[in-house]
């Protein structure tokens, strides 16, 4: 079984009518993976099976219908007793999906612009079929309960993201006695300090933070910037004087044949499952990609009782029909495995910074878009600072140092 530690307290949840046991409060996706379930959903056109990839709400592979609501990222939802989960977009159901035939009919890809374009009768048929097959989830069953009115707040210095960089900044500011408000969408501070396989010495500094507070937008209605934050089931509109963004990264899907098979996950997702949920996603884990992270992940997998293979190698292709059963790498040939952990998959989450007026540029060296800022994290907008992995790949120590530098600049200009 992939649980590293046995369940001490159990609740029952339901997946497509089957009863499963889980730990209350753990992410739903982790609970399902602990049961060896990797296939969560079906893709929109080809109905390929999909399973969790990023485990941080930044992809669409783990979406399910949860308690009557469509397209819910199961990696972000905590387990509650009696929860009802359903796989979506499959006919007749998530285990057997006849629409997978699309994947074989359109071997390489489906040319939706030209397929049957203007062919009499056939084009009408295509329209009808395409319409019937469109969409992922089904409209919610009921009207949503009305929410409490949104709360408008006026804060001074706001930091978004309590990972290495955000904590580095917060610690410096706290030591200097500078007031700040720190937001994080996770249940605990630490960011990758809690999830990554590499540099995991020491616990994160326990900064005071507003947790489970998800920043969903940076707006500037009437020219005044504010954050839209969902927290405790309520919307908060948070106006600020200065903003430090330390929101880190998303995971980019590495490109190789069958890269979307359930079992292909980002390195951080696999590491986070072990470290936080106590779940080893599979016995045999190919730790591929960027070498430093891959080596650290291999150690972590072994310490959790798993087997690591293809460490730091490049993937040629993944194999499997319903989920990964083997990997071919440049160095190692074809090897059996259940999980392919893509290391070095993280790329900067630049969206909020860009909305705030920062510049974003392509870095050929890092092969990703990065937020542009000076050594202190100042962006093109003088009230907006950035630090950490939003500026490109770096160790958590380097991110903390950047957070510290930005905090010094902010505190300096505040006094």
């Amino acid at each position, binding site marked *: 079984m992939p649980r590293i530690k046995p369940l001490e307290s159990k609740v029952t949840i339901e997946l497509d009518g089957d009863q499963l046991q889980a730990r209350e409060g753990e992410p739903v996706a982790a609970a399902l993976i602990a049961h060896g379930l990797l296939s969560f959903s079906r893709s929109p056109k080809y109905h390929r099976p999909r399973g969790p990839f990023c485990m941080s*709400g930044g992809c669409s592979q783990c979406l399910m219908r949860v308690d009557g609501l*469509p397209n819910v990222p199961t990696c972000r939802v905590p387990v509650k007793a009696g929860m009802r989960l359903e796989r979506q977009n499959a006919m007749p159901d998530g285990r057997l999906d006849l629409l997978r035939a699309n994947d074989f009919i359109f071997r390489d890809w489906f040319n939706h612009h030209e397929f049957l374009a203007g062919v009499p009768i056939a084009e009408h048929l295509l329209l009808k079929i395409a319409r019937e097959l469109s969409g992922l989830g089904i409209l919610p069953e009921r009207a949503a309960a009305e929410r409490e009115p949104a709360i408008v707040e006026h804060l001074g210095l706001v930091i978004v993201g309590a990972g290495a960089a955000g904590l580095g900044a917060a610690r410096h500011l706290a030591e200097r006695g500078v007031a700040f408000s720190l937001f994080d969408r996770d249940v605990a501070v630490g960011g990758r300090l809690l999830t990554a396989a590499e540099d995991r010495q020491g616990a994160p500094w326990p900064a005071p933070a507003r947790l489970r507070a998800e920043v969903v937008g940076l707006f500037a209605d009437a020219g005044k910037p504010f954050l*839209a934050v969902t927290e405790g089931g309520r919307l908060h509109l948070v106006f600020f004087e200065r903003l430090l963004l330390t929101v880190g990264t998303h995971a980019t899907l590495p490109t*190789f*044949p069958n890269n979307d098979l359930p079992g292909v996950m980002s390195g951080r997702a696999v590491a986070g499952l072990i470290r936080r949920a106590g779940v080893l996603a599979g016995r045999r884990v190919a730790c591929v990609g960027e070498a430093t992270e891959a080596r650290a992940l291999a150690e972590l997998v072994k310490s959790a009782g798993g087997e690591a293979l293809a460490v730091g190698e490049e993937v040629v292709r993944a194999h499997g029909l319903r989920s990964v059963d083997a990997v071919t790498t440049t160095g190692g040939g074809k090897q059996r495995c259940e999980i392919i952990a893509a290391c070095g998959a993280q790329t900067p989450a630049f969206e909020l910074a*860009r909305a705030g007026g920062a510049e974003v540029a392509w870095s050929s060296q890092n092969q990703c878009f990065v937020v542009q800022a000076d050594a202190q994290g100042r962006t093109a907008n003088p009230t907006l600072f950035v630090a950490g992995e939003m500026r490109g790949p770096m160790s958590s120590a380097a991110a903390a140092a950047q957070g510290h530098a930005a905090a010094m600049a902010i505190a300096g200009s505040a006094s």
Partner: protein
Amino acid sequence: MSKSLVCACEDVTASEIEHAMTKGPCDIESIKRFTGFGTGMCQGKQCLNAVARLLEAKAPQKPAPEQLLAFTPRPPLFPTELSYWASASFDPALAPGGGVPGALDVTAPTLRPTAPIKSKAKIVIIGGGIMGLSLAWNLTLQGETDVVVLEQGYLCAGASGRNGGGIRAQWGTPTLITLARRSIELMQRFARDMGINVWFRQGGYLFLAKSDDVVRRIEKSARLHNQHGVPTEILTADAARDVVPELTMKGVKAAAWNPKDAVIFPWPFLWGYATQAQKRGVQVETFTRVQGFELSQGKVKKVITDRGDIECDTVVLAAGAWSAEIAKLAGVHLPNEPHRHEICSTEPLKPFLGPLVSVLDSGLYFSQSMRGEIVGGMGDPREPAGMNLGSTARFLTRYAQALTEQLPQAGAVKVLRQWSGPYDVTPDNSPILGKTPQLENLLHLSGFVGHGFMMAPAVTERMAKWMATGESDELFERFTLSRFAEGRLEREDMIIG
């Protein structure tokens, strides 16, 4: 099959991205629109860098780093239930302003082509939206192929790429009804004529009326529709609920229903017209800006662009909401004003909503796209004139409140992205067509107030004929720029928003 996926949300493969690179422009905004990558549940978080890597490695012309431009991220950052947005409040007395992104981002100097532009052409069309491109195509049908179309951004950068795709014959004047009906005919056979799918779906238009005044308006226009062969029916609120059972009909007094109205996917129209016009010799120049005109003896002699001058016989100004700004460069005053209209799209849902539904009193409209998203918007009566394509939280709040009043289940549906486009508004809500007084070879094709997309196929068919044959056509005599000075306005009331 062993596909390499780039965008897992929308099932876009690496081969499909590579195919797109060979079919057209290789800037990221164009590739995004052509393949659909980055438009699904994750909004590009997972795929944008993968596409940029593919472009850097495999584009026919290797892009320089400054030519790899990330597409504009749209709020919200994560899918967020409409009920959250509905819980905020806004001041209806205040004019909306601002928005994100703060700067206009429809053009990009680093993507301007380095190849020289044609120095002479018979006809120069300014604006590569639906108007300019369909006019170019229709001119080729009239035998005019010495045509250059100038577009400041990528194709679909302007309002033609930002609208909700509604197509209706329910208009308030015989002229617009006739044009719309002809457009619908042409759009129905677009795929056959142009070889590209446009997903023309006849789900009907359901207009809801909440005040006696609006009820009288829809009754009056329904009589007009019936006289012109449009089968609009006036329904009671209960009968309208039969059309869409999910609607509450809260406050609704009556509805106008035409099952023949439709929704299309806007982008392929532009690609279809552009590709076919280019095959017949038209030059479509993207990322090219008009900087001025050389005038002599009451005529435009040259169009001055940032890639060189073009000597020409005729200039057509079809730049939508940018038209007034460009006309000014020729010393011509157009009364057109740009007005931002915001719009948003939700997570994809299985089909449940047949028609496009619009509440005429508030300007709310929404329909379900061929991918299952609820796409909709609502004009803001306080929106000031001015070019602004920013997105606001205020819009999401107004829209969410109005939508959930009509469709309560939508409260638990998540918004995926919001954007905006510019309406090209004229004082009487009617277009400006035909000649310019004192500048005889500058022709106008603008001022469509948010409904240009659905009028374009029919209007440009007539304009091309009028230009090529010189035969008189009342469109280009009634809707002229001179009507404003002469005080004969052509008022249209069936405007949404």
